[in-house]
């Protein structure tokens, strides 16, 4: 058994005391920021990027991954007790979770989401472990045209799935690509857009852009809105769901895990969308859909399982194809690059200790998280009482130190603040930051593969449409690009026959609609 051998190697890496410590730290920080509304995983990972400079690659990725999937555990706590999502991926959990809490079943809701997360998270690691190596060896056959087509499809999906407007998503992606071109040309070494500023010849430091957009940008948005948090006053007792609750939740957890896994694998898919779709699915399948929104335990179990499963499976495209599917994963991509580890098809073969160490740490991390989120739930409830106004300065100070420490330069702090302002404005006008950071990090590869393909084909664009794999990927990308047109035509046809149709307004409706097609 090859897999078991490799896994054993992985555990040997993950079980060293130092990596266990990083795994625990990741899980702990992840749960904390999951619980706290107003700071999300991408911002936290951006803040901690400078810290990971000094530690080995494997430890860095174990820590950052732990934060990412740990946040999925913590997010539900806030949704259930406060009716405020701790994370975007726990928005739907508010619907039934808070109702359960009001009916005195907060304990059961918290427990089922922790167990659901644990089961889904673990199953998803199994999937990651089995799927990634064969996918990576398949991707090894890719030449520049296939890579280009894959990157185009990836960016297209992120633009399509990350926000409500595909036009805006793609525009942010193009802006990211453009930001990625600042500095030296990847093939000929010409200076581009540096305008004589020496510091720019190495390009915009990704980490500064990320910390600005996510760290400072989020603080500014929250300062404007003020989060008012009131913990639902209840005794959390009976942390174990009863047999009836288990029976109702078992199938939703299984379906949520499976659904989450497959949605998470898609770039731009990920935890948020999967939680919405799995909620909608359970409601559709339920014999009593009227119970949803009034404290149905399936409405907590399914989305909480789905978001965990998706968080883990979004490592599949990163570790096999080198495509980060969401902002948090893009930060982990950056962390690996800094350590000279290039995520992509060669990773599993060339750096097995990174891949298998990460996989093993995820099994361990999920167990740690189950313990952190069940017996220690009281700790996090206390954390919820910390008012955001006291938290905001801490986040800011952390960002400022982080920005400074990258090159020990005050100039970098200025750049970060400028991107913070930009991130704030983007959110004000409903532009998503995720496509921008993904495109920025993928830009140099996209450009290099495009130019290499064209040199190889002597300028014949047919190279992207004649080779079978590249052609399939391009066709998918094109289909995705044209989908808004299809939808527009369809809705016009509908409105001609049925009268005016209202545009889907709710984020939930919109997302599940557009992806289930």
């Amino acid at each position, binding site marked *: 058994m090859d897999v078991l051998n490799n896994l054993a190697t992985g555990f040997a890496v993950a079980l060293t005391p130092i990596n266990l410590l990083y795994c625990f730290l990741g899980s702990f920080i992840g749960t904390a920021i999951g619980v706290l509304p107003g700071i999300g995983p991408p911002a936290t990972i951006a803040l901690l990027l400078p810290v990971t400079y000094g530690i080995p690659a494997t430890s860095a990725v174990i820590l950052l991954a732990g934060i990412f999937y740990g946040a999925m555990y913590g997010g539900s706590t806030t949704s259930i007790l406060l009716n405020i999502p701790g994370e975007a991926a726990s928005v739907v959990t508010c619907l039934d979770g808070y109702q359960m809490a009001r009916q005195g079943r907060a304990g059961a809701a918290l427990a089922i989401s922790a167990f659901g997360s644990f089961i889904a998270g673990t199953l998803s690691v199994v999937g990651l472990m089995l799927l990634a190596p064969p996918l990576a060896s398949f991707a090894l056959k890719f030449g520049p045209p296939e890579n280009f087509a894959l990157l185009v499809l990836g960016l297209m999906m992120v633009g399509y799935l990350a926000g409500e407007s595909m036009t805006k998503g793609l525009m942010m992606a193009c802006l990211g690509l453009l930001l990625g*071109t600042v500095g030296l040309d990847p093939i000929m070494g010409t200076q581009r857009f540096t305008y004589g500023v020496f510091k720019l010849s190495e390009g915009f430091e990704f980490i500064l852009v990320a910390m600005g957009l996510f760290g400072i940008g989020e603080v500014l948005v929250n300062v*404007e809105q003020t989060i008012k948090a009131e913990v639902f006053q209840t005794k959390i007792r009976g942390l174990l769901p009863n047999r009836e609750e288990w029976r109702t939740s078992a199938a939703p957890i299984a379906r949520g895990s499976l659904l989450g896994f497959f949605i998470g694998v898609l770039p731009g898919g990920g935890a948020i969308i999967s939680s919405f779709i799995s909620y909608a699915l359970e409601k559709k399948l339920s014999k009593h859909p009227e119970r949803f929104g009034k404290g149905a335990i399936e409405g907590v179990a399914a989305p909480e399982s789905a978001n965990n499963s998706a968080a883990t499976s979004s490592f599949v495209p990163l570790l096999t194809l080198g495509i980060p599917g969401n902002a948090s994963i893009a930060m982990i991509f950056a962390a690996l690059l800094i350590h000279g580890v290039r995520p992509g098809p060669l990773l599993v073969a060339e750096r097995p200790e990174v891949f298998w160490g990460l996989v093993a740490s995820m099994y361990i991390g999920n167990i740690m998280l189950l313990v952190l989120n069940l017996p220690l739930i009281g700790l996090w409830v206390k954390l919820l009482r910390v008012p955001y106004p006291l938290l905001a300065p801490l986040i800011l100070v952390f960002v400022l130190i982080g920005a400074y420490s990258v090159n*020990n330069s005050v100039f970098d702090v200025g750049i970060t603040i400028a991107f913070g302002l930009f991130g704030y404005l983007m959110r004000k006008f409903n532009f998503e930051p995720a496509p921008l950071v993904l495109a920025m990090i993928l830009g140099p590869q996209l450009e290099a593969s495009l130019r290499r393909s064209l040199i190889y084909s002597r*300028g014949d664009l047919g190279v992207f449409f004649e080779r079978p794999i590249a052609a399939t990927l391009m066709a998918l990308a094109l289909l995705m690009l044209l989908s808004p047109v299809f939808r527009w035509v369809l809705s016009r046809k509908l409105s001609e026959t049925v009268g005016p149709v209202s545009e889907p307004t709710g984020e939930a409706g919109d997302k599940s609609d557009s992806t289930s097609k």
Partner: protein
Amino acid sequence: MVRRDAAVAAMALVFGAAAAYESSKLPFGTVHNPGPGFFPWWTSAVIVLLASILLFQALRSRSSTAREGPGRIAKVAALLVALSVYTFLLDPLGYPLCTFLLVLFMLRATDPQRWAVALSMAAITAVGSYIVFAIWLSVPLPWGSLLG
């Protein structure tokens, strides 16, 4: 607020056009052998195209997509000014003092707390983070050239 959406789209349009112009100064190469200007030029062209679509949509629709909140824009602006001042004063006044003032500002101006809370939080944050980062993790945070 349709105008705001349109204004944003128009700004993006101008930006895309400017980027395309700047890219055109770089050697474009040929399709057989694309040069450094090839990719940025096409990317800028796509931005121009997308911005035109957005502008068209904004002018046609009657509802705004911009997030309208209760809005405390003045506080955001004040915080941004404070952050810029922070950057300029970081070298001369040093990290501990600047951070103390920034946190104090946030806890008195953006989200007012009691003086006692604000002062102690600011002091703890400034001193604590200096100890952790500058002393333990040896990040050379500026101590302040004016303070010697």
